[in-house]
C-alpha cells in the first residue's frame, strides 16, 4: 500500500509525517482487530487440541515414573528407564514389534497391489458402461463403511468352528475342518484378506482418480501409433501414476509402527491362542493398561511406539522430499 501518494504532496513534510504515522496506527489497529477475531474463531478447536492432543503428549513422562493413581502424574516417583528395562526384558517386546512391522508390511503391499489392479481394470471399462463401472466402484468401496465390530461378525460367520461357512465347505469336499480361532499361523493370511477386503476399494478410487487425471491425448497418440492396451498400461498409466503410488507408500511406511487396533482386537476376538501372530503394540498397550493394570509397562510400550513412529514419519517425509519434492507434507 502506497500511503504517501494517497496523501498528496501539498502538505508540509511535518504534517504528512504525522498523517502517515496515524495511518500506520489505524492499519495496525485494523490488523490486530482482524487477528483477534480470527484467533477467537480458532479458540474452541485449539482448546480441544490442547486438551486431547497436547496434554497427552506431556503425559509420556508417565513412562519414566512409577505411576500411582493417588499421587497423580506429577506426584508419582521418577524411576528413569526402569519401565523400559522391564518391557524389553520380556519376550513380549520383540513379539509385538515384529508382529506390528511384519503385518503392516504385508497389508501395505497387498492393499497396494489389489487396489492398483482394480483401478486399472476400472479404467478399462470407464468408457463402455457408466452404470456398471459405478456399480463396481460402489460395491468394492462398500466394506470400507463397516466397523471392525461388524467385520468381526462377518469373519465369525465365515470361520467359526462349529457352523462357519468355511468349515462347512471344507467338510463338504472331505477336508478336515480347522479350528481357526486357535491356529495362529493362519492369521497373517486371514487378517491380510480382511484388510484388503476393507480398504482396497477405497484406495482403488484414489488411484482411479489419479488415472482419470492423466491427459487423454497420451492414450490417443499411443493408439494411433498402434500401441496395445497392455502396452499403454505399462508405458503410460503406471509411470504417470508413480508419484501418487510412491507418496502413498511412503506415508504408510511413516505409519508402519501403528497397528490398526480394531482389526487386531475385534477380528481376532482377542483370542489369546492367536497372540503369537496377532499381538501388536496397540493391543499390548491396551491389554497391559486395562486388563493387567500395569501402567508403567503400558506407557513404556506406548512411548516407545510414539517416539519411533515420530522418527519414521520424519524419515518418510524426508524420502518423499527427495523423490517428489512438491508432494512432501512439510
Amino acid at each position, binding site marked *: 500500500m502506497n500511503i504517501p501518494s494517497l496523501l498528496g504532496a501539498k502538505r508540509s513534510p511535518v504534517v504528512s509525517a504525522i498523517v502517515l504515522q496515524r495511518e500506520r496506527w489505524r492499519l495496525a489497529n485494523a490488523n490486530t482487530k482482524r487477528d483477534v477475531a*480470527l484467533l477467537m474463531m480458532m479458540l474452541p478447536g485449539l482448546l480441544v487440541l490442547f486438551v486431547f492432543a497436547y496434554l497427552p*503428549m506431556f503425559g509420556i513422562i508417565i513412562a519414566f515414573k512409577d505411576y500411582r493413581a493417588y499421587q497423580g502424574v506429577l506426584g508419582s516417583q521418577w524411576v528413569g528407564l526402569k519401565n523400559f528395562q522391564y518391557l524389553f526384558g520380556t519376550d513380549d517386546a520383540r513379539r509385538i514389534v515384529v508382529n506390528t512391522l511384519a503385518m503392516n508390511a504385508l497389508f501395505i503391499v497387498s492393499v497396494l497391489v489389489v487396489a492398483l489392479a482394480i483401478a486399472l481394470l476400472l479404467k478399462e*471399462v470407464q468408457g463402455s458402461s457408466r452404470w456398471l463401472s459405478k456399480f463396481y466402484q460402489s460395491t468394492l468401496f462398500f*466394506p470400507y463403511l463397516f*466397523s471392525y*465390530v461388524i467385520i468381526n461378525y*462377518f469373519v465369525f460367520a465365515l470361520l467359526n468352528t462349529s457352523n462357519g461357512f468355511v468349515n462347512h465347505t471344507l467338510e463338504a469336499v472331505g477336508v478336515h475342518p480347522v479350528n481357526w480361532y486357535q491356529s495362529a499361523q493362519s492369521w497373517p493370511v486371514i487378517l491380510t484378506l480382511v484388510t484388503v477386503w476393507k480398504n482396497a476399494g477405497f484406495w482403488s478410487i484414489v488411484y482411479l482418480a489419479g488415472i482419470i487425471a492423466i491427459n487423454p491425448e497420451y492414450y490417443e497418440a499411443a*493408439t494411433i501409433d498402434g500401441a496395445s492396451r497392455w502396452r499403454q498400461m505399462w508405458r503410460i498409466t503406471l509411470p504417470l501414476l508413480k508419484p501418487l503410488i510412491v507418496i502413498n507408500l511412503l506415508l504408510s511406511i511413516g505409519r508402519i509402527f501403528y497397528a490398526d487396533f480394531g482389526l487386531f482386537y475385534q477380528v481376532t476376538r482377542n483370542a489369546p491362542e492367536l497372540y503369537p501372530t496377532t499381538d501388536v503394540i496397540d493391543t499390548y498397550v491396551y491389554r497391559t493398561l486395562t486388563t493387567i493394570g500395569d501402567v508403567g509397562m503400558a506407557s513404556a510400550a*506406548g512411548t516407545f511406539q*510414539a517416539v519411533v513412529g515420530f522418527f519414521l514419519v520424519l524419515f518418510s517425509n524426508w524420502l518423499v522430499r527427495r523423490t517428489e519434492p512438491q508432494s512432501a507434507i512439510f
Partner: protein
Amino acid sequence: MVVLPTKPPRLRAGYRRVRPGQIAIHASLLLLSFLFLFPLVLLVSASLSSETDIYVLQEPSQILTAYAVTITVTAIGTAAGVLVMALLAYPLSRPDFSWRRPLSFVVFFTLLFSGGLVPLYILVTHYLQINNTLWALILPYLVMPWYVFLLRAYFAGLPRELIDAAKVDGAGEWRIFFQIVVPLSRPALATIALFCALTYWNDWYLALLFINNPALVPLQYLLYQISTNIQTLQTSSQAFGVTIPALSAQMAIAVLAIGPITLAFLAVQKHFVSGITLGGVKGD
C-alpha cells in the same frame, strides 16, 4: 455447386467396438464385486432364521437405548465437529492472518506425534473425569487434523475478492465466515460431515475405554458386548444349562447396525467418492 467437405475419418481406433478383452475385464470385476459382497450376503441370510426375533425381542429396550446413544453422539459430534473444524481451518486459510504459520504448525504437529493411549486414558478418567458421560464419546474425535487441512485447502481456493469486498462493506470476520465462506463451501463441509458421521456411528473404541454405564452404551459397543457375552456363555453353557442365542441372533443385530449406514451410503455415494479423492489425491 458447393461440395461440403466430408467428415474426416475418425482417428480413434476401436471406437464403439466391443473388444474381447473388455468382456474378460467385466467378468473379473463382476466376480470381484461378488466376492466383496459375499460376507454381507452370508450375514443377512444367517440372520433370517426363526430364532432371531425371539432373542432380539427379549432385549428390545437395550437395543433401543444403544440406538438412541449412537444417534445422539453422531448428531452432536458431527454438527459440533464440522463447526469447530471449519472455524479452526478458516483463519489458517487466510494469507493475511498474522498467526497463520505458527498455528498451522500447532494443528499439524498433532498428526506427527501423539501421546498414545495411556496418557489419554489417565487424562479422561483421572483428571477430566468425563468417563461414563457422553462427552467421552464425543470430544476426543471432535477435531481431526487431517480434515482441518482438507478444509483449509478448500477455503484457500475460494475467490479472495468476495472476502475483500465484504470487508470493504464493513462486514466483520464472523459475518464473512457464516454468510460468505460457509455457503460457498457447502460441498466440502458436506463431505467432511459425512466422514465425521461415519466415524461416530462406527465407534466402539471410546466406549470400550470409557463407558461402563449400560445406559450410555452405543450400538457398536453393544454388538461387541453381545459377541463376547455369547462367547463366554457358549464356553460355560453345559454347566449352567443356559440356552445360547444362536449365531443367527447375533447376525440379526449386526444387520440392524449396518442397515442405516447402507441406506445413507446409497443416498450419498457421490459425496463419498468426491471426499476420497479430496483426501487421497493431494497436490494443491
